[in-house]
């Protein structure tokens, strides 16, 4: 039931034009069956799953094709039945244009499910349920794709106060959660109930921005049908980024999760509404996560929400929406935080909540960047209460240590600051750049530490060997010594996977830069990171090289 309750506010935020009507006029449609599926194995935060199929295998819909690699990982499944054409590197839906291992499937058109069985989570231990969800590939569908089983943990006290379901959907253009709540509210709340039981939470708060009256009404009706008054639907004021997890928790519960702590330490856990639906399907229907609702909007004839199989090409997805002729880009996500796609032939993945079709007319290139006039607009708009212009100043001057003192790593890259800046400074680009540089230096430092340790260890060993050799000298033949040396050299050489090889190249490049600029940073808020943050770091690391390229034109020294 909905109830009048006291809401809290977060500072800052902006009210961009929402553009949400276009995609909510029609109900959710099932996207046309694709002729080919390219399913990336690595679709979540955490370790990349191991491929479980090879070329020529026949797979069923819902069959696991990528197995979770350790617990911080999540499985991947075939979205329909068909034949595996290959397990190969394909272009990712990622701005940098990097490729990653994908399972390419040719659908057989029969859409034949594997055997599905509901999971009796009441009978299972929490660990077993979490393992089940991991293998069902359930991840956060708000865009962060954090493996859900890791978050369905009641925490230290063994119970939580509040389960927050995030239906705020504050990004312009995106309406997939809106559509889901309108059409599948009952299933969604069943998922919420499962989550509540797993977390031993006392109440469920569903936060929905008040610009979605239909969704609120549908959810309230569904909540009433459950007859369970621990579930409350709450309309929250429409203000971007009300859907940021920390912001929504703040608005609904008043709790401001302190830096470096988790919301569960304060009795709150937050999930996207789409995730609740996915959990319902996984547990109650025995269906792994193989599709999701995606908004296609922007520069199209008919914007709409589709139920899309993962691995569908974005080009196939947008085709029925009739993209207009002046289309010049595809963005994954919304206009505030979305990512430019390297092309339209990239697959839809679990993180895809929206495929935004762009054009010059819709998203005109910003007027030239002017100097910062310290007007403070950005600080007023920042939901993290940061001083964006100070971080900008220090990032541009490459004084990364100072930028960190201004809490660079508390920036959620929401884009509010850049949105309001009258000087049209691409502020977020500078933060991305600074963050990536700082991570690079972290890596450098680690590498240097490792190298030093290796070196010291070798000295030690050489010393010991010298002594041993002196003792055994008489017994040793010249040939034997040589062999030993060769073996030693072999043992010393670390075995490198291609990934490590790439990392080493990165490190080498970073070392070069570090030499060039002696400035030392002492990263301060990079210690004791949660898996979320570490995962974020990994993502940032991947974006690094490309960002540096993009940031270059902004980094004029004299201005």
């Amino acid at each position, binding site marked *: 039931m909905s109830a009048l309750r006291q809401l809290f506010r*977060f500072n800052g935020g902006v009210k961009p034009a929402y553009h949400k009507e276009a995609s909510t006029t029609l109900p959710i449609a099932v996207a046309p069956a694709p002729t080919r599926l390219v399913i990336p194995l690595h679709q979540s935060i955490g370790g990349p799953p191991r491929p479980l199929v090879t070329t020529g295998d026949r797979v069923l819909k819902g069959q696991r094709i990528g197995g979770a690699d350790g617990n911080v990982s999540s499985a991947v499944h075939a979205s329909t039945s068909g034949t595996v054409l290959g397990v190969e590197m394909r272009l990712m839906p990622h701005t940098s244009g990097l490729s990653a291992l994908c399972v390419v499937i040719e659908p057989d058109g029969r859409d034949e499910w594997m055997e599905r069985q509901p999971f009796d989570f009441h009978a299972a231990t929490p660990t077993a349920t979490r393992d089940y969800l991991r293998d069902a590939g359930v991840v956060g569908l708000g865009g962060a794709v954090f493996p859900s089983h890791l978050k369905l943990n009641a925490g230290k006290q063994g119970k939580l106060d509040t389960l927050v379901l995030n239906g705020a959907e504050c990004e312009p253009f995106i309406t997939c959660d809106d559509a889901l709540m309108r059409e599948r509210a009952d299933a969604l709340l069943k998922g919420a109930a499962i989550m509540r039981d797993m977390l031993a939470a006392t109440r469920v708060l569903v936060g929905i921005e008040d610009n979605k009256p239909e969704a609120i009404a549908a959810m309230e009706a569904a909540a009433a049908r459950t007859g369970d008054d621990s579930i409350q639907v709450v309309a929250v004021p429409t203000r971007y980024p009300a859907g940021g997890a920390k912001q929504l928790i703040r608005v609904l519960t008043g709790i401001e999760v302190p830096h470096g702590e988790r919301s569960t330490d304060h009795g709150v856990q937050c999930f996207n509404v789409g995730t609740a639906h996915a959990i319902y399907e996984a547990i109650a229907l025995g269906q792994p996560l193989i599709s999701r609702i995606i908004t296609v909007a922007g520069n199209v004839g008919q914007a709409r929400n589709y139920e899309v199989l993962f691995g569908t090409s974005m080009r196939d997805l947008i085709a029925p929406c009739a993209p207009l002729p002046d289309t010049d880009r595809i963005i994954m996500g919304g206009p505030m935080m979305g990512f430019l796609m390297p092309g339209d032939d990239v697959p839809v993945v679990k993180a895809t909540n929206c495929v935004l079709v762009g054009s010059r007319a*819709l998203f005109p290139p910003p007027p030239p960047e*002017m100097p910062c006039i310290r*007007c403070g*607009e950005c600080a007023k708009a920042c939901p993290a209460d940061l001083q964006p212009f100070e971080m900008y100043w220090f990032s541009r001057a490459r004084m990364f240590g100072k930028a960190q003192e201004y809490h660079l790593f508390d920036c959620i890259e929401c884009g509010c600051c850049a949105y309001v800046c*009258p000087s049209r400074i691409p502020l977020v680009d500078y933060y991305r750049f600074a963050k990536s540089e700082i991570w690079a230096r972290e890596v450098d430092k680690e590498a240097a530490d490792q190298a030093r340790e290796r070196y010291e260890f070798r000295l030690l060993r050489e010393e010991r060997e010298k002594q041993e050799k002196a003792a055994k000298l008489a017994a040793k033949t010249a040939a034997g010594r040589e062999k030993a040396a060769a073996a030693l050299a072999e043992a010393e050489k670390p075995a490198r996977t291609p990934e490590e090889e790439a990392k080493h190249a990165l490190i080498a490049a970073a070392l070069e830069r570090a030499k060039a600029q002696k400035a030392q940073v002492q990263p301060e808020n990079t210690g004791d990171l949660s898996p979320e943050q570490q995962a974020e770091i990994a993502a940032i690391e991947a974006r690094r090289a490309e960002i540096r390229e993009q940031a270059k034109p902004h980094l004029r020294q004299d201005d």
Partner: protein
Amino acid sequence: MNNSPYFLKPASVQSVMLRVLLALLPGIAVYVWFFGAAVLVQIALASVTALLAEAAMLKLRGKPVMMFLGDGSALVTAWLIALTFPPIAPWWLTVVGVLSAIVVAKHLYGGLGQNPFNPAMVAFALMIVAYPSLMSQWPAVGFTDFLPQWHAIFGPRQLDAITMATPLDALRTALHTADARATVAGVLGSQATFGNIGGKGWEWVAAGYFIGGIYLLQQRIITWHMPAAFLATLLVVSSGFALFDPTRFVGPSFHLFTGGAMLGAFFIVTDPVSGCTTPRGKLIFAAGIALLTWIIRTFGAYPDGIAFAVLLMNIAAPLIDMNTQPPVFGHKRKGDGRP
């Protein structure tokens, strides 16, 4: 743009600056009503000089001239100079003042957004130190004949008939140099320059600036912190001393409604580039200016102290900012983050 956000609020430096100019108009209109059209001549003169100087400096520094010239920041500086200088100042005084603001205070420090000092106040301070008498000749209130004013600006100057000491100047001179028995009440009652609230005519100009200031607040171009802190501090300090010894210290309405107090509160103190940016910093910054203004007005050798007060606080601004950083989300309290 390759990176999010892909769309921006339709805001620009230019629109900010244009709205600042718009906000100055009510004050200017009242000014013309009471003191004649000379101020318009000064505004025109200052604007042309500022734009030429800005263009020349941009060209010298290899910057895109049209893009920066259009930002309007030079015009704001020019208008503020024209409004703080005497409207009958000789033309070259205004020109030199504007040049020192644009060339020295702005561009030699790195141009838009980089200047540590408020350019208009640099101009005022330099000129009042170099030409104290020229900077103290103000037209008599109500004497709005244009021709003598025109001559005052462009020569030949015949000033006696048209000038009058400003209220601040008159009071200071009377209290400091006249016989020791002069009291505030006596001085205020004796001269035509004093009005009902502040200085005659000046009180209405101040009201005009106040209206402009409200517009800036409504447009969210400035926040309430600086004007409120400035005016409140001036009010409290001047009331306190006036209560303590009403014969020697003039009361708050006089301080608030004469000289540059209102213009300062809404248009000068609030210059974002050279001032503080954190909410608490803004309060301290503006309060500091008000205090210094009162001290200079009361004890100093110059009639109005705002320019020096602003420059002094400009020096302190970075330090104040550094020590008044607002708490960042999630850093407010250690432990439980509950409200």
